[in-house]
């Protein structure tokens, strides 16, 4: 073991620390992005032309904001967003500071995914609910979110996996985490075993997310 991964053995506590940092970044930015993404996704669907709360202005503004944010490469977003990070967190470096660019990097992506998931909800079912006198909020919560739940969970899995990927880049602003170890220690010091083990841990996280997600989808889907 020691012969295969000589540098990792001596860095056990750093690896534990980095894994926790990655989990921390993923978890909190996922929570915040979920709220923002769901909000944007739902608003996009209900305000779209022929939506239940059709509103051309809101729709086009949201649509453009999402497109714009999605167009910025993450590595640039990390830097460009630093004034906002400074304002919100009080610093622009560190694990917590990375939450701001992570959220802005992932929530527009999630919003689009949620929008697509909700667009797949049969329009006839929405119309049936309207014919039964359901209010817009009842239709959102009892029809869209409920009928779209399996798909929302599916896109959430994809999003969390993408998010884990983004956290590794946040090392560029001193976020720590597995990506940071892989690059600033493993790559910089030519300690390939460190890079390799960091990758393995990330893969394990990704598989775990996929497995748990698939299991939940199976529980909630009825066809």
């Amino acid at each position, binding site marked *: 073991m020691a012969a295969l991964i000589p540098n990792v053995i001596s860095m056990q506590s750093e690896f534990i620390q980095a894994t926790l940092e990655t989990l921390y970044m993923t978890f909190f930015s996922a929570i915040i992005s979920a709220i923002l993404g769901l909000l944007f996704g739902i608003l996009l669907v209900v305000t779209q032309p022929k939506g239940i709360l059709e509103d051309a202005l809101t729709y086009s503004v949201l649509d453009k904001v999402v497109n714009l944010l999605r167009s910025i490469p993450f590595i640039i977003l990390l830097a460009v967003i630093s004034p906002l990070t400074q304002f919100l967190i009080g610093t622009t470096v560190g694990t917590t500071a990375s939450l701001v660019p992570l959220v802005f990097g992932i929530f527009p992506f999630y919003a689009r995914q949620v929008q697509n998931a909700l667009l797949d909800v049969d329009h*006839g079912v929405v119309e*049936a609910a309207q*014919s*039964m*006198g359901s209010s817009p909020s009842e239709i959102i919560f*009892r029809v869209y979110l409920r*009928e779209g739940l399996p798909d929302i969970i599916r896109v959430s899995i994809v999003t969390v996996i993408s998010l884990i990927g983004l956290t590794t880049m946040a090392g560029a602003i001193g976020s720590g985490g597995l990506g940071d170890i892989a690059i600033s220690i493993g790559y910089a010091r030519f300690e390939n075993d460190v890079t390799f083990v960091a990758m393995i841990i990330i893969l394990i996280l990704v598989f775990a997310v996929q497995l748990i997600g698939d299991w939940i989808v199976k529980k909630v889907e*009825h*066809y």
Partner: protein
Amino acid sequence: MTEQNIIDLKNITVTFKNGATPVKAVDNVSLAIPRGDIYGIIGYSGAGKSTLVRVINLLQPPTSGTITVNGQNLQQLPPKALRQARKKVGMIFQHFNLMKSRTVLGNVEYPLLSQKITAAERKQKAQKLLALVGLAEYAATYPSQLSGGQKQRVAIARALANDPEVLISDEATSALDPKTTKAILELLEKLHETLDLTIVLITHEMQVIKTICHNVAVMDAGKIIERGRVASVFTDPQQPLTTDFVETSTNVKAAIERITATVKVDELAADQELIYFNFIGNSAKQSIISDLAQQYKIDVNILFANIDQIDGENVGYMIAIITGDLAGFDQAITKLKDNGVKARRLSQPKGAD
């Protein structure tokens, strides 16, 4: 609330702006539906039937015209009152539109979620409705496990949950086989009787109209081109489209095609003609044949005959070759008209060419 017409649409026009050319899906239609009626609306695809009925609960706001349901002008209601009014108009659809994330019971409970009743009361009411449509034992199943006919029954139970006074059926049987269609129509008829429901039924099959409707309106290109009691529309269609629907549903169309293909109309003797008879009442058929034979010395050779029950009346169709004194025949037919018999020549009048 004892207005005679539970639904009163006045001068409804719906225009869709599809790109450059606006489509008038509904074109100045006025339609009054009497309380307690089963009113059919028939027309080919694209005639504007769905658009028209979606106006009834304002799912489709009209470009112009007024909508009165149960004495209320729906267009003047604020959103909340409109939703309340919609609850009194149940709707079922061609593709059932059930929620796949909810059980059968959950689907029927859905409209009750916004009512201020306990979960137990809600469940009890939903179960009662499921029993009414004959699906009591399917409460815990998911819609994906049901047949089309069963799904439509669930949709009917759901549509009844708010105790509506009107049930709109938009091609509810179009995705079902003839046997299931018949069962669903029987269920609707039963509900009409037991719950005092007014039913508005859209279809493109005259067979469906014939089975349960009292009144019918024929739609074409956004307009109602003909309307009236089903029996009279059946026996005396005024418009070519209506005639087409009627003859398709009674098999007369197929029979005429078959007969004119086999009987060489040109080869009929000088004293022969091919005639299509149409009559109301059971005794009519006998009397045509005997009257013609005895009083007018005309023989009737029947090639096709069919009797239908329409809105409680027997309506008959007959294609026959008559032989004898043709001058007397016209006279006879004028007289028979008073007994509800009509005749139409399928062969060219002699000496016409």
